[in-house]
């Protein structure tokens, strides 16, 4: 059975997550500052696990976060590494990391991931998120 669209509403401390199955496009937006990010990322990781059984030929991850804490930083890396392991098997994956053009902290955070990961990881500068 194909995976359906996914939608997780944002809260004060967690981002909005949408996945459009037809396009193979996953978007995280808003802020991610939960005290414990494991609880938040668990359902998303479970869902990705299912998705990779029969994924779209191409998968695009859009990260458009305003803020995130270090707990999220680690959970996101674990998620990206999981994607790295699936890249090129049944789907080719690209990650787009959005940052506002004068936001050095967000640019540096993207560069951190770029340095660690071995998966197409694009830094996308925008006027406003």
């Amino acid at each position, binding site marked *: 059975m194909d995976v359906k669209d996914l939608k997780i509403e944002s809260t*004060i*401390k967690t981002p909005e997550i949408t996945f459009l199955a037809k396009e193979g496009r996953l978007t995280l937006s808003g802020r991610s*500052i*939960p*005290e*414990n*990010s*494991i*609880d938040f990322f668990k359902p998303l990781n479970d869902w990705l696990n299912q998705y990779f059984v029969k994924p779209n030929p191409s998968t695009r991850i859009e990260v458009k976060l*305003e*803020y995130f*804490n*270090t*707990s999220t*930083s*680690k*959970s996101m*890396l*674990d998620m990206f590494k999981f994607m790295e392991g699936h890249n090129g098997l049944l789907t080719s994956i690209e990650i787009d990391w959005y940052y506002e053009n*004068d*936001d050095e*902290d967000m640019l*540096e955070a993207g560069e*951190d991931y770029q*340095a*660690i990961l071995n998966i197409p990881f694009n830094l996308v500068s925008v006027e406003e998120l």
Partner: protein
Amino acid sequence: MAHSNLYDFFRKMDQDGVILSYKGIISPELITSILNIMESKMQVVEDNLRIRKKVYNVLVEILQNLYHHVDAIPDSFNETQSDNRVVMVIISKDDTFYTVQTGNYIDNSKVNSLLKRIDTINELDVNGLKEMYQQQLNSAVISDKGTAGLGMIDIVRKSGNKLEYLILPVGSANSFFCLTININAI
């Protein structure tokens, strides 16, 4: 508190440019409240969006670090609070810096490793911090609490200033840990 002391307290906070001060139990709900108050206050006192975001970002990390790592109050001091996660947080501003100061009890057994960690981080320059952060991010295993040893590095990296601290011994088994973080306001 006597009324005369109350006025002294008010004057002192006023002179020190205190934006927010809190003494009490730290919880996720309290952190949310402080962040909400600071977000609306910052919109009034700070025009620069980048600085507003930076202060917010650093504050999140400081408060959550405190929440995850605060130790119990020594029994002999535990007169008014039934919960042990009691901390102090003061956020202030002068012409040069936004300053976040925190105070909390720490078990003496943990003091040496904490200070060693801070001193190590304080010695690093921008590139050293980047390297340490990436290494820790890549190699650390996330704990059940959701921590990965990144908080302190992130605070110094984002604030652009070294951590200032003082350990006050308060008995054979406990100390009070004072921490100051400056964030450039210009």
